């Protein structure tokens, strides 16, 4: 059974005029895949990502994550699923500005009720893994974009989630840092077998992934297998 199974997902926004954003999405994503969802703005890719991340709900269809039906969850359940199964990486990093790097990384564990010391040790471990040990007690505004995104990645990884959802992870970064971040995600996928879904509108970023799912006007178009990108991938970025 696939890790993520979407069957006929429909989503309509009702802000004045009804806007049918997702028009019957069917999609399976297997464990360990490194996938990108690509589309122009307004294509529905962000909405799809929000539904995958249980940040938003859908109207009809079924979404099954790791065998659990994600439908009509209470806020509490949704929070618990997000906490344990999903790691988020955002375009604007979304770090809490008044917390240090290590405190930001600790936060998901705080909501799991992990004791302070253990939380801290684990967070330091992940920061070390991402080469940020000396930045642990710095605040986000003292760090570069690439460093901030690596802190965010550490925060996404710390709960060992089933999937990592990255929403335009390189959108706020320069091209050099973008490459680094994508290499990092790729490495996490290959070495740790973490399922990663990247939403982007940049083909260069999408090209770094193993599978590119094109979405247009709320329906899935072409699904492109991209297994040979390693041979010539890097230089294509931006």
């Amino acid at each position: 059974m696939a890790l993520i199974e979407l069957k006929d997902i429909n989503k309509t926004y009702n802000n004045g005029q009804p806007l049918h954003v997702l028009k019957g999405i069917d999609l399976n994503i297997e464990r360990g895949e490194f996938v990108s969802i690509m589309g122009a703005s307004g294509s529905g890719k962000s909405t799809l990502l929000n539904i995958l991340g249980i940040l938003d709900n859908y109207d009809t269809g079924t979404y099954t994550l790791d065998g659990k039906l994600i439908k009509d969850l209470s806020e509490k359940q949704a929070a618990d699923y997000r906490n344990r199964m999903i790691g988020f990486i955002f375009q604007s990093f979304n770090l809490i500005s008044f917390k240090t790097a290590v405190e930001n990384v600790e936060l998901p564990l705080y909501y799991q009720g992990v004791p302070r010391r253990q939380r801290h040790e684990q967070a330091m471990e992940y920061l070390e893994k991402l080469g940020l040990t000396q930045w642990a007690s710095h605040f986000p505004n003292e760090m570069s974009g690439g460093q901030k995104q690596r802190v965010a990645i550490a925060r996404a990884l710390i709960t060992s989630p089933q999937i990592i959802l990255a929403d335009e992870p390189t959108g706020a970064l320069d091209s050099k840092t973008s490459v680094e971040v994508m290499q990092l995600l790729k490495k996490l996928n290959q070495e740790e077998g973490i399922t990663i879904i990247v939403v982007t509108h940049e083909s260069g970023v999408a090209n770094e992934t193993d599978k590119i799912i094109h979405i247009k006007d709320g329906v899935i178009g072409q699904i492109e297998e991209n297994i040979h990108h390693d041979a010539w991938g890097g230089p294509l970025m931006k």
Partner: protein
Amino acid sequence: MRIEIIHEIASSLRNNKLRTALTGFAVSWGIFLLIALLGAGNGLMNSFSGNVEDYISQTITVEGWRTSKPYKGYKDGRYIQLDQEDVTYTKGDLWEGVIDNVTTTTSSTSSTLVLDGKTVGGWLTGAMPRHQEQFKIKMAAGRFLNPDDITGRRKVIVISGSQARELVPGDVSNILGKWISAGPISYQVVGVYHTDESDFRRSTYIPYSTYKSIYDKSDKIESISFSVNGPVTLEEHKAFEEEYSLGLKRKHDIAPDDRMGLWIRNGYTDNLEMNKASHILSIALWILGILTLISGIVGVSNIMLITVKERTHEFGIRKAIGARPGAILKLIIAESICITAVFGYVGMLMGMIACQVMDKTVGQKAVDIGFEKIQMLVNPTVGLDVALEATLLLIIAGTLAGIIPAWKAARVKPIEALRAE
């Protein structure tokens, strides 16, 4: 988990110093004002009730007065003279068990008191021992008249402090035992009653029987004083006065509906009305206090609202990484409680310090009200219990004030919260 949330709060408060300071100020100021206000009010009431105790005794005094209505052939404006019969009426079976401790005073005679060539004016009044208690006469030296003075018709006298100061140098007690002459008669001073420097009372007291045998052999009486058992409320006292005076009015041919003719001073109802006044004062104080507290609460809730709005994005992040709505709610409320508790405590301390300062400054000052100096504020402080209750109330109210915005924040969908900037 409990310690965890304290760390969460501490870091959040530490990193939002201005917001914390503003909220804290609103809370501290509210509590400070409340306590200072209650303290001053308490001081005022203490001085009030202290003065009541000093000057108003549980006594009813009746004196003759001018009538205001013609009745039974008499013109109005007639002066009513009480006499021994009225005392008999007052002491009689009719008022058995109701009226007690009946005393009388004679009218007064003007006289010049002389001691070793020094003179001072005075009014001699024949009084009974209980007069001291009934009129709250404070002794500065010696004693008041006693029953033996009455039965022995002794030539003893109680004079005022101001008279004593004019007659002898130094302490007023120097005059005790001295014989002073009032016209042809000499009296031995047995007591000096207390008067302030600014108080030039000239009343002197000699035994009732002595006065009657020397100055006024008639059975005329100036005033009748007594205590009562039975009437308690204001209405009961009014009814009693009505009923009691009716008997006297009948005897002296005063119109039953004449408000004048008899002058009745009722210390019981004076007391009741003073108590009512101080009760109203205390209610007014509490209303002011509560209004002050409300302004503090509004301050807190206002800031909580802004805070929550400002932090929506942060709450969105927290929710995205797995914070339950309850955790957000708890965080906001706990922050609100922490701020109100800490700053409420600070405000409480400041308020109590302000009370102490009031006590040491205004509280030590006496105001001259003519015949006596009184303290404006006596012990202007607030009990620790009231202070703690007020602080607790503000903490609870601050929490309640935080709940609505917190509840809103907790309910915002993470996706919407994340969009907020």
